[in-house]
């Protein structure tokens, strides 16, 4: 069942040349988590705010459970949309306790019902002992969980999350990701999740929508986005790809570091670019090899090498953490990937 439908959304702000959101369309089924990901200023937050009713679209339609809530002639105000939102700065009401914050959205219910729901939510996010505290007396992670509980308490048709982890430090962010995803799934919530962090998007989303300059670049499962990028931007943004030039042959693609045996449906001798990630490349020490190690970054579990090919092209390669070669060593780099690689023609 389709919970959210967004069609041809356009939003332009005064005093800017480019549209913040430019013709974005997607659908979301019940119980699904969609991660909207892209660099800052790509329009992901504006899209979210249009869905919430905090901004009016210039053009396009937003439907919630088959009810049009925004179009050129209709605008349903946010309080009548029944969506829950988790804000970047959490936006907890500082004059209300944790319980009162969570109860804020529970209306037209008896006091006992409210109390029960608040109790359930507090239990769900593991904050029962802190019910009577005020937001200023909570840690970052606790505030985050209160904000989530507050948004979920009225059982919204749709939950919107705007970079909810960005104010937390790195360790806590990893921990909260798992915890929050588990809570969302246990509530079977339908969620639009905005982030600029590709790891977070891959982790949180059942599907990902990659945005750039107000436009939707690609939408699909994490695996599709990662391995079958539609555009060079997606490949670059979602996995720090390097792009290696090549020429199509009948047997595969000829590159500077050897023949890639991947048959491609393009005329022979077309110039193409192959998206290569650090785990697609390997190398061996070879005095007459095709490249030189210019830098090594120790990452704990592995080493990340930066190689310069004789043409000047830079490639990155992961190796075992025990394999250490000095900078300046001449090596022979080759493509080690055993899965099909993403190829872009010029």
């Amino acid at each position, binding site marked *: 069942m389709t919970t959210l439908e967004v069609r041809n959304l356009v939003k332009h702000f005064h005093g800017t040349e480019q549209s913040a959101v430019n013709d974005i369309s997607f659908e979301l089924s019940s119980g699904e988590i969609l991660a909207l990901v892209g660099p800052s200023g790509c329009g992901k937050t504006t899209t979210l705010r249009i869905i*919430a009713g905090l901004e009016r679209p210039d053009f396009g339609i937003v439907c919630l459970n088959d009810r049009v809530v925004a179009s050129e002639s209709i605008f349903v*105000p946010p*309080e009548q*949309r029944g969506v829950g*939102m988790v*804000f*970047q*700065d959490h*936006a907890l009401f500082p004059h209300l306790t944790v319980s009162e914050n969570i109860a804020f959205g529970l209306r037209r219910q008896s006091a006992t019902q409210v109390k029960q729901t608040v109790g359930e939510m507090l239990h769900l996010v593991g904050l029962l002992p802190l019910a009577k505290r005020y937001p200023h007396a909570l840690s970052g992670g606790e505030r985050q969980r209160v904000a989530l509980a*507050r948004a979920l308490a009225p059982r919204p048709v749709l939950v919107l999350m705007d970079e909810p982890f960005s104010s937390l430090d790195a360790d806590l962010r990893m921990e909260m990701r798992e915890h929050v995803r588990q809570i969302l799934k246990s509530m079977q919530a339908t969620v639009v999740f905005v982030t600029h962090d590709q790891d977070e998007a891959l982790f949180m989303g059942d599907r990902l929508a990659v945005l750039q300059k107000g436009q939707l670049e690609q939408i699909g499962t994490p695996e599709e986005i990662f391995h079958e990028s539609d555009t060079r931007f997606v490949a670059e943004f979602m996995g720090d790809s390097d792009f290696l030039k090549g020429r199509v042959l009948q047997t595969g693609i000829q590159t500077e570091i050897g023949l890639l045996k991947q048959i491609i449906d393009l005329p022979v001798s077309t110039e193409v670019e192959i998206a290569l990630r650090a785990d697609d490349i390997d190398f061996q020490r070879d005095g007459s090899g095709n490249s030189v190690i210019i830098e090594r970054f120790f990452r704990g579990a592995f080493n990340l090498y930066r190689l310069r090919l004789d043409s000047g092209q830079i490639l990155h390669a992961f190796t075992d953490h025990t394999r250490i070669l000095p900078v300046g060593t001449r090596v022979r780099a080759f493509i080690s990937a055993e899965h099909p690689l993403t190829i872009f023609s010029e």
Partner: protein
Amino acid sequence: MAAGLVALFVAVPLAYIFIRALGAEPEAWQRLIQTRIWRLLGNTLVLVIAVTGGALLCGVSMAWFTERTDLPGRKIFRWLLAMPLAIPAYIGGIVHLALLRPRGGYIPQVLESIFGQPVFTPSPLGFWGATFILTLFTYPYVYLLSAAAFRSLHASLEEAARTFGRTPFQTLFQVTLPALRPGLAAGALLVALDILAEYGTVALLRYETFSSAIFVQLSGRYDRSAASVLSGILVTLAILILWSELRLQGQAQFTQVESNWRPAPPTILGKWRLPAFLLVAGLVSASLLVPVFVLAAWSIQAFLDPQTLATVFRTGSQGFGSYLWNSLWSSGLAALMAVMLSLSVALFSVRYPNRISRFISRLCQVGYAIPGVVIALSLVLLVNRLLPFLYATPFVVVIAYVLRHMPQAVRASESALNQLSPSLEEAARTLGRTSLQTLMQVTFPLILPGLLAGGSLVFLTSLKELPATLLLRPAGFDTLAVRVWMWAEEGFYTQAAPAALILVLASALPLYFLLRREQIFK
């Protein structure tokens, strides 16, 4: 819509003054230009410059002593240095005049009885006296702003200067003070506007400025066209100062303390500890302790003398209680009205920032530039013509307070709203509240402390307002400020003292509440 009406309410009296000034007969202009304008302009500007300079010197040096040195008793001095704001300058003037008057002052008398012949003492009358008194009671503006600036400055800024080879002394003048400049300029301009509007002190010390000349024209000779001309010039002067103040206002945001802030180590005074202590203590005595002590002593004297006591509690048909009550309700009502009006302006300018809303917010600040005498003149003329039923009622006085002091309320409301993240209101909307419910349940409770602060400021300054009250009050409507002034003018100091003391205490209370919100008192 509401904001627009508020702007109109503010703009009409101001525009009216200019219309009257330009519409005055050419004769009035000519007479004034030939005789008085240049002298008044000179007098006023010299006083403004002298007092602003004095206030800067006192304010910044005191702020440096309490914030950046190991001065003994810093914590208490912070309070004592800010508290003179509760004493209207004319009351301080009355006390110092009684002490230092060349003939009959307490100190000259005592000296004469000791030495057996008159001893020269500086006179508090005239230019130097006015400069001295006004500096004593306006430096706290500069002190508060520069202390906050000193406090929030990053230690690393000065440390960086030191690593580039500057001595501590060079650092102070090349790095620290320049970094404080916007805050200092804002404080200085506040003082300058205050001096332009000052009536009581300069009249008391017989120094003629625009404000006092307008007052005389209005109350004595009742020459309205001359008063209009003088007012037009005075307001032009004030608007020029206000305009530069508003330009600096945006840059003067120094009071926020960042999370990685740490205090710079205090300068060790060493052998200068005692002289520094005496200097600070001397200023505190002259501006706070002596006035309060003398007022208290006079009050006791008044209570011990049955005849004076009878006059204090019963003059004509009115008693002491009614002055107090008049003061409290008129200032309280003005504070309430100013806050309510300012809230609509602030909501408009903060939540819908555009050219119109910015213009309205700026327009509401012009009250700063309209001295009490000018507001009085404008209201006398306007009310007479447009709202005759209000004429000679206390409400005209309240309207004058609101017009004059609304800028403080507007600034307080705007800063309270600015500190409120819009996402809180958006969160309330997504949780099912309409915009009106959001205003009442989220916005209003959260900005209430800021609104109260703005209200206290309006209350405090209305309580002290003298010229507008004197000129606009209906017969028999006496406030504490009016009573103190009238008694003191006739030389009945002991009789005036209890009312003055109550006025100071009534101002100290809202001031205490306001100061507790400041970073340096936390």
